[in-house]
């Protein structure tokens, strides 16, 4: 075997290994906050919320029934069905844990009690004091005799010493709550919470688990008029991840089909098309493998890279193939000839996409890196592999013919029609912009979500029927220790009282009563310790006062818990299943990660101002609404800054390449006109500006500017002859434009609303850019270079003769 052959085999094996290693590392991150600037306080707070309180292993199964009895029966059936699958479900909770095990609640009540101020607990001890216990019990009996509150009657019956009274007055936790997180008021809607048997390794595992759980649930209620819904973190992750996978595969496939169609229409050739497709697949696989090896998890935006990259890389293939049809020299000659164009366009495109890393938007940065890489790999593959193949086809048996569209682009009539069409389009779009104004802005959370989401529908159903907290702000307080969080919580409570007085907030539900205070716990536990020895005496007093033994259960359990915690390390956290259930969405206390969660009801319109007022270290007052408002305020400025930087970089590169102030001016004017027309088109089509549309502007700058650059380069090479430049590159620009528009346009059907908006905006912008570059830019060149109709007529005559 020759040495060259060995080297080729070795290179092939290495390439295969590279691809396999890269593709095996591809994973998705469905957190939409990963797309947004992490320096924004709202993003930081919501990320903390999702990471710590969204419960990645908890699936929420919703039940809609025609009557409350069916709903309750269905909830029971589901819980029983899941209990039979311990390999899938660790726990299926269909009713509050304290309803099935009331005694377990005493641990949490004791925890709340020992966190009370020391004087409050001293007051409780007074109630238990031998001298006062009889009076305390008599007062409780009077309460049971005359109270109108069913809660007070129920509670005092089981708590004759009033141990829980300060909890109600201190935190308001025990009062007035009639809502349930398990059932709607009318009982027609119920919820079962499922905890997965074990943590999930990746999204594929989640999707598989969810499918199995759905199958069991559907079978459990088969034949009944029950409608099930599935939501919660696992449902969202499975839905979004598989959606992203599907979006990436289908949009890439659709792009390839559309490109094939366009190529076939132009050339009617199968062999070069087959090779072109092979090159695109090679580029795609290498780019994806590179992304897998060097980039983090793919975000929902990153998933759109494939179709964009294919739509861009094919441009170089078109250019090479078109040039090869006329090229008379060697492969090297063709490569050198094409390199000049490809170098400029791929440099500007890659620079534009890599420049997205300058933005503070991680999702966009990722897309920029991936497409930038893809474009570079695409340029190398096309120049290095496709150019020799194109020449071999030309010199070999494969019949190569000029494009069927070549005569069209050489036709003056077509140029005139195209010019008038483009002028008409520009006039209509500008008029629309003047009359209807800029498109409306929409930065709401809905723009980040899947367009058709079963998980989201189930969640909204749950909000409607249980409790809608979407108007509230979540208060997230983090710290490196319990004491740091405690200090922050205390500071916040006093400031929040001021905010309520000032009219910025309506109410505040502080997690403070549920956050341990070491000093209080130490003193209260010590103060309550002697009570254990007096339990028999207290029990006798209760019985003598006319209560049953059952009435003493809570007192015995609480004092018993106090005794159990006497030797515990402080601070004490309640740990039994009921306590964990209550605290699971309110507090986190892993080593080095201490978080408390509260709720604030803001005065409408004051959400962001209130959030800003609490922007301190480790303190976040957040909501999706406030995030949208913050994005609306910060994103346009950010995008404008990055766009200006990007344009500056492109102009700098072009000033070296074109070395003509007038050409640079033409480029700038063309780009500005494209953007203004795009705004007009969006207004005409009723589209809105949002985070993704703004990102699309950056992509458009990176992609669409190629067309004007190609034409300006052609004009320069042809001594300013606009007709000749269009004849040579008109078809290439047409192919590039339609392919890239097909690539982006295929994203218009993506499941994610944002990705779809990005795709549509880019496709629209590219078509506008292509038309303006192809038909108006040459006219503007003539005008700016003082070439009037007469001289152009003379030149045409010369050309014709």
């Amino acid at each position, binding site marked *: 075997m020759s040495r060259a052959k060995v080297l080729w085999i070795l290179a092939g094996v290495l390439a295969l290994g590279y691809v396999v290693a890269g593709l095996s590392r591809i994973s998705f991150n469905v957190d939409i906050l990963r797309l947004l600037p992490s320096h924004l306080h709202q993003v930081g707070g919501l990320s903390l919320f999702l990471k710590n309180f969204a419960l990645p292993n908890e699936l929420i199964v919703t039940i809609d029934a025609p009557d409350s009895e069916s709903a309750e029966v269905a909830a029971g059936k589901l819980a029983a069905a899941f209990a039979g699958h311990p390999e899938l479900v660790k726990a299926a909770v269909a009713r509050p844990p304290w309803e099935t095990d009331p005694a377990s609640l005493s641990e949490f009540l004791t925890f709340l009690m020992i966190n009370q101020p020391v004087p409050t607990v001293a007051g409780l001890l007074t109630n238990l004091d031998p001298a006062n216990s009889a009076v305390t019990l008599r007062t409780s009996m009077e309460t049971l005799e005359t109270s*109108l509150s069913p809660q007070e009657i*129920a509670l005092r019956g089981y708590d004759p010493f009033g141990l829980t009274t300060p909890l109600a007055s201190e935190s308001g*936790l025990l009062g007035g709550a*009639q809502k349930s997180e398990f059932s709607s008021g009318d009982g027609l809607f119920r919820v079962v919470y499922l905890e997965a048997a074990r943590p999930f390794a990746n999204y594929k595992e989640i999707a598989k688990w969810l499918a199995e759980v759905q199958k069991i649930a559907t079978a459990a209620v088969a034949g009944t008029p029950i409608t099930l819904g599935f939501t919660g973190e696992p449902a969202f992750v499975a839905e979004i991840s598989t959606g992203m996978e599907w979006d990436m595969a289908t949009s890439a496939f659709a792009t390839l089909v559309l490109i094939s169609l366009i190529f076939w229409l132009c050339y009617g050739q199968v062999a070069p098309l087959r090779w072109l497709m092979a090159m695109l697949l090679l580029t795609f696989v290498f780019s994806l493998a590179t992304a897998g090896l060097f980039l983090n998890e793919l975000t929902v935006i990153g998933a759109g890279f494939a179709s964009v990259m294919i739509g861009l890389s094919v441009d170089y293939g078109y250019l090479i193939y078109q040039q090869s049809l006329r090229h008379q020299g060697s492969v090297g000659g063709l490569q050198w000839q094409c390199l000049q164009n490809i170098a400029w366009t791929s440099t500007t495109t890659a620079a534009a996409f890599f420049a997205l890393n300058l933005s503070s938007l991680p999702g966009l940065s990722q897309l920029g890196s991936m497409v930038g890489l893809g474009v570079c790999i695409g340029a190398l593959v096309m120049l290095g592999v496709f150019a020799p193949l194109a020449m071999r086809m030309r010199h070999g048996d494969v019949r190569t013919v000029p494009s069927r569209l070549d005569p069209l682009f050489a036709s003056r009539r077509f140029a005139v029609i195209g010019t008038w069409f483009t002028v008409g389009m520009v006039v209509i779009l500008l008029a629309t912009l003047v009359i209807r104004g800029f498109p409306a802005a929409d930065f709401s*959370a809905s723009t980040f979500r899947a367009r058709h989401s079963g998980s989201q529908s189930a969640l909204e159903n749950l909000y409607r029927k249980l409790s809608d*907290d979407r108007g509230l702000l979540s208060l997230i307080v983090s710290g490196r220790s319990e004491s740091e969080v405690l200090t922050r919580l205390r500071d916040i409570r006093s400031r929040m009282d001021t905010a309520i007085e000032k009219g910025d907030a309506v109410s505040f*539900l502080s997690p403070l009563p549920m956050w341990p205070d070491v000093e209080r716990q130490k003193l209260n536990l010590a103060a309550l310790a002697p009570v254990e020895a007096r339990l028999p005496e207290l029990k006798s007093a209760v019985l003598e006062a*006319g*209560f049953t033994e059952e009435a003493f259960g809570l007192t015995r359990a609480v004092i018993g818990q106090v005794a159990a915690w006497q030797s515990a390390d402080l601070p004490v956290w309640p740990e039994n299943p009921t306590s964990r259930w209550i605290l699971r969405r309110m507090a986190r206390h892993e080593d080095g990660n201490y978080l408390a969660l509260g709720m604030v009801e803001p005065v409408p319109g004051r959400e962001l101002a209130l959030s800003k007022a609490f922007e301190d270290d480790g303190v976040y007052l957040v909501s999706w609404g406030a995030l949208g408002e913050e994005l609306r305020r910060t994103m346009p400025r950010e995008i404008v800054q990055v766009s200006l930087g990007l344009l500056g970089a492109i102009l700098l590169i072009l000033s070296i390449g074109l070395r003509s102030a007038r050409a640079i001016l033409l480029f700038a004017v063309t780009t500005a006109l494209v953007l203004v027309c795009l705004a007009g088109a969006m207004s005409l089509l009723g589209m809105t500006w949002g985070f993704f549309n703004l990102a699309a502007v950056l992509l458009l700058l990176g992609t669409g500017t190629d067309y004007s650059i190609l034409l300006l380069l052609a004009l320069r090479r042809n001594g300013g002859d606009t007709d000749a430049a269009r004849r040579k590159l008109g078809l290439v620009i047409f192919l590039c434009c339609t392919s890239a528009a097909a690539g982006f346009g295929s994203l218009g059907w993506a499941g994610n609303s944002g990705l779809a908006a990005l795709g549509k905006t880019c496709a629209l912008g590219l078509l506008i850019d292509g038309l303006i570059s192809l038909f108006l830019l040459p006219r503007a060149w003539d005008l700016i270079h003082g070439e009037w109709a007469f001289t152009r007529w003379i030149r045409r005559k010369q050309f014709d003769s």
Partner: protein
Amino acid sequence: MRYFPSFQLVLSGILLFALTELDAASQTTTDDLVPIRAWIAKQAQVRSVSARFTQTRALRTLRSPIKTEGQLWFKAPEWFRWELGDPAKTIVLGTPDGVTVIHPAARRAERKPMDKAGATPDAALGMMRFPGGGSMEDFVREVQVLSVRTVGSQCHVEMLPRDAQAARRLSVIKWAFDMDSGHWISLEIITREGSSIRNDFYDVETNGKIDKGVFTFDLSGFRISDE
């Protein structure tokens, strides 16, 4: 945002410790409801009611039931006074503006607007808030009638509110009335955990003259909290 229940949601079930399963509700026919329909029709002519009652609270945590005497006045459409204890330890005054709960001994009062007054316990208030807005249709919409039994001129009804949130803590509501006079005889609410509150009415007078002063109370010197 992903679903996040509030504190109150999470802790809503804390108050009741042990609940038992509800027996399957038996079905009633339209014919069974005739006495109730007749009683509701009779209420249209009621302009005022005054009555005395004995309230018996039999709680699982008490060795023996607590009996308390009380008195009530009602004047259509929305005026009422309800007193528990003699002398009154709790007074509830209802006016078109809202409900005021008065604790004379503690010199304390709580005022609730009408929309929140619905949260007051129906059992404790006896006849003051009865399901339905005065029509059989409203009654049936709010209440599931489990059984209707007549003994002489007395009609005994067992029922449950259709509101699942309210019903989940109740075993049954027992209501008895006199079919001839339309007077209430008793109202008893039994919870799933086995406690009950029962009102036995006597000295019932319908459409008698009630002084307007009954529906007022001098709150001077009282600590008043508003909801």
